[in-house]
């Protein structure tokens, strides 16, 4: 059994950083003797040692773990990107290296088992091998690709299985006292392998950034977030892309919210990135101070992120955000939009949808959930001068990474608003962060938006709704089992979420005027965006023509 000291990230610590003390504190908490520790110099300075979350052992939590079927894996990296806990990781390794490492495993049965964890995918093997066979001198051979689960980080949410979907390379299995050691041993083997050679990392496919140790280490896992948390995977992806573009030259200001609670529960800190926490309402002001200080010291190329939830950014800290972006300072903002105050117990926010049930927005006789319409932060912000605004979801990785990359590269303030599923407050399964986010886009609950002030001289050139399905229609139209056309509306999506369930009967029929109002709100919002983008809506045009004919 390795000690905490052995497992500390292999890095040079600054002079002030007491690595031994950090290890002692974590060991004390891991063994339940935290209260017997002497007064802590870290606490005295409001400092959390970096990446101590990586030392947290969650292996007692998950009742089930993902099982990898290498023969079906395509190496898409969706599982790795969508894991909120850095609990599932991938690695490409040459056959030569793999066999050399396997030769060190003395037990033949275990060696065969480890070998079976590696796939010959088209992406990492066949595509390379084909070129290699034609010109061995200039092309590396195909590599084997493996997916490994860290059972000390996996909470058993099943998100990886859901996003793997019909690739059918992952399934959940029951954790038992017998298979847990195998997972630990397999993950140990993963760690013993050298890093994925750069040549196998697909430059076109941004998901592959997560093959780089430098990207993985940024968020060590071990955070206290809920199973399947939609925020944490998005944070991991943002950190990875930022590091990809600027290396270590970046930092985070976290506005208080869920992200700070699960990200800074002493002594566990998942971040291996400079991170500071301010209050709900003044993260942007704090970030302005840091930006000014960095700029005064010549660090104008350092990237500064301020992230917060919808409570921090749309409500209590909205003025501060507006002020910061109006300043023109080069700060990047990440809004983790759960449409509810997840951190403080699920109170209604201005981002909540009409009809959504929450605390302060209860569903009863007097009112059916939230009465007001949702505030659209993206639309408000893009009317500020020279601000890049992207509204996206983490599971549409191409759109997401495009938005994040451009936000970082944009020479001024940029805001990235991401729909982040909150399982307990939305009332959805723990495996459904990606699925519900995709369906939120499909149902017009959360349209994708890019507003880039440098994209052209006209407003319509600067705004893009690319990525939204059926962009010229009111709703996406599908057919039911009987062949009848059925629009996939806001109601179709709302029916799958517990926060709206009281609006429907047992057969899924909408019962209340409130949920109809919610659908109308989403339709009007979508039509407004279409008009702003210069997209003609054929359904709306037909509706207007019919109304005109009626009144003529």
């Amino acid at each position, binding site marked *: 059994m390795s000690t905490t000291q052995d497992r500390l990230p292999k890095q040079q610590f600054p002079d002030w950083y007491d690595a031994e003390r950090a290890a002692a504190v974590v060991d004390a908490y891991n063994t339940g003797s935290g209260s017997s520790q002497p007064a802590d110099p870290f606490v005295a300075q409001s400092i959390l040692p970096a990446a101590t979350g990586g030392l947290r052992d969650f292996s007692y939590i998950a009742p089930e773990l993902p*099982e990898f079927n290498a023969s079906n894996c*395509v190496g898409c990296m969706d599982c790795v990107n969508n894991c909120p806990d850095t609990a599932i990781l991938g690695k490409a390794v040459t056959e030569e290296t793999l066999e050399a490492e396997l030769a060190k495993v003395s037990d033949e049965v275990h060696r065969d088992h480890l070998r079976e964890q590696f796939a010959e995918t088209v*992406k990492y093997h066949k*595509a390379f091998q084909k070129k290699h066979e034609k010109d061995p001198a200039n092309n590396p051979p195909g590599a084997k690709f493996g997916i490994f689960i860290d059972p000390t980080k996996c909470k058993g949410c099943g998100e990886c299985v859901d996003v793997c979907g019909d690739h059918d390379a992952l399934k959940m299995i029951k954790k038992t006292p017998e298979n847990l050691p195998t997972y630990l041993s397999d993950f140990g083997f993963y760690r013993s392998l050298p890093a994925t050679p750069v040549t196998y990392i697909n430059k076109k496919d941004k998901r592959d950034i997560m093959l780089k140790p430098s990207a993985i280490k940024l968020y060590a896992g071990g955070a206290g977030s809920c199973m399947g948390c939609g925020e944490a995977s998005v944070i991991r992806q943002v950190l990875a892309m930022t590091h990809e573009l600027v290396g270590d030259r970046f930092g985070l200001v976290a506005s208080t919210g869920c992200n700070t609670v699960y990200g800074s529960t002493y002594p566990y800190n998942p971040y291996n990135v400079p991170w500071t926490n301010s209050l709900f309402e003044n993260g942007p002001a704090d970030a302005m101070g840091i930006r000014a200080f960095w700029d005064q010291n010549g660090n104008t190329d350092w990237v500064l992120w301020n992230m917060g939830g919808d409570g921090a950014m749309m409500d209590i800290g909205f003025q501060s955000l507006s002020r910061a972006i109006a300043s023109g300072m080069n700060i990047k903002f990440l809004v983790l939009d759960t449409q509810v105050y997840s951190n403080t117990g699920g109170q209604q926010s201005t981002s909540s949808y009409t009809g959504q049930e929450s605390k302060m927005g209860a569903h009863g006789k007097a009112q059916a959930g939230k009465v007001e319409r949702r505030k659209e932060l993206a639309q408000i912000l893009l009317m500020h001068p020279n601000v890049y605004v992207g509204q996206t979801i983490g599971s549409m990785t191409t*759109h997401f990474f495009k938005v994040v990359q451009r936000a970082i590269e944009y020479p001024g303030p940029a805001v990235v608003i991401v729909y982040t599923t909150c399982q307990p407050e939305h009332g959805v*399964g723990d495996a*459904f962060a990606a699925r519900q986010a995709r369906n939120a886009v499909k149902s017009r609950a959360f349209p994708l938006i890019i507003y880039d002030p440098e994209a052209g001289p006209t407003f319509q050139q600067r705004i893009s709704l690319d*990525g939204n399905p059926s962009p010229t229609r009111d709703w996406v139209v599908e057919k039911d089992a009987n062949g009848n056309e059925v629009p996939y509306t806001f109601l179709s999506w709302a029916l799958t979420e517990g926060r709206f369930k009281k609006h429907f009967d*047992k057969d899924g029929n909408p019962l209340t005027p409130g949920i109809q109002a919610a659908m109308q709100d989403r339709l009007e919002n979508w039509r407004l965006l279409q008009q702003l983008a210069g997209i003609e809506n054929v359904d709306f045009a037909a509706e207007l023509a019919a109304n005109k004919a009626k009144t003529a």
Partner: protein
Amino acid sequence: MSVTQQQLDQIFEQAKADLSRPRPANEQTLAYIADQFSFTRDQLPQFFATRYAELDMAEQDIVFSPQFTPKFEDTLPYATILQDQALTRDQMNQLVERLEQANIKTPLLLDDQPPVECPPTDIHLERFIGRLSLDAGIDATLYAQLQQQCPADEQPMMLAILRDALYTKAHKRDMLVQVMNQLHADGTLRAATILALSDFLRTYRPNDLAELYQQLESYMKTCIEDQANANDESFHHEQLKAEYAGSDHVVDRAKIAQNHYQDLIDKVQPVLDVVRRLCGEPAPTA
């Protein structure tokens, strides 16, 4: 005995028919196309007309594998054709080439527009053919046992199960043979029990019957404990989605979790029962 030309032709025709059969456009594939190439579902014809041919090998595989990955049920007709025989690597390659030359078009059904034809590439054909277990035969003794012991209506599924590469390992095959003999003697040999056994052997990797018994007991104990401890916040499950409709319907997450564990228990219980008897262990008292 090797695979006959007639069997090869039958396999080819079966694969051609399967790949030509209209099927719903896979939602995961549509999501990839929309996200990676900015063609929404209503633009799928344009995608196939203008972009499809330019996909690199990895993109072809990642985007379309969900469409061309056969399920276990899909393997049954092939197992029936091949019985205990296996295709060689060359025969597999030739089959893919033959299918390529057949210019198959797979009609993808979309809800709101006419079907779109997807011409599967060699990458897709290899994906489909490679996951039908055509290159894994059945050990001769095991095959004879199957024919003697297994009810006729269970044989197609049993043939497909026993083609699993798992049973190329002698110690796994040995456990299977003993379990089949015991179930036959009891008059309860069913493919579903052997499928549950195969899943368990693959996942928990016991080395012999005694270890299998110990692991099954441990598995059951864990399931029963988790079932007893299930609470409102303890679990995720697919059923949650369906459970949310209904204004007076209270979602009981604990109940869903309990039912899930019961499903796991019910699946493995027949395996535990037979292995317990094989190991000479007494049945637990109520």
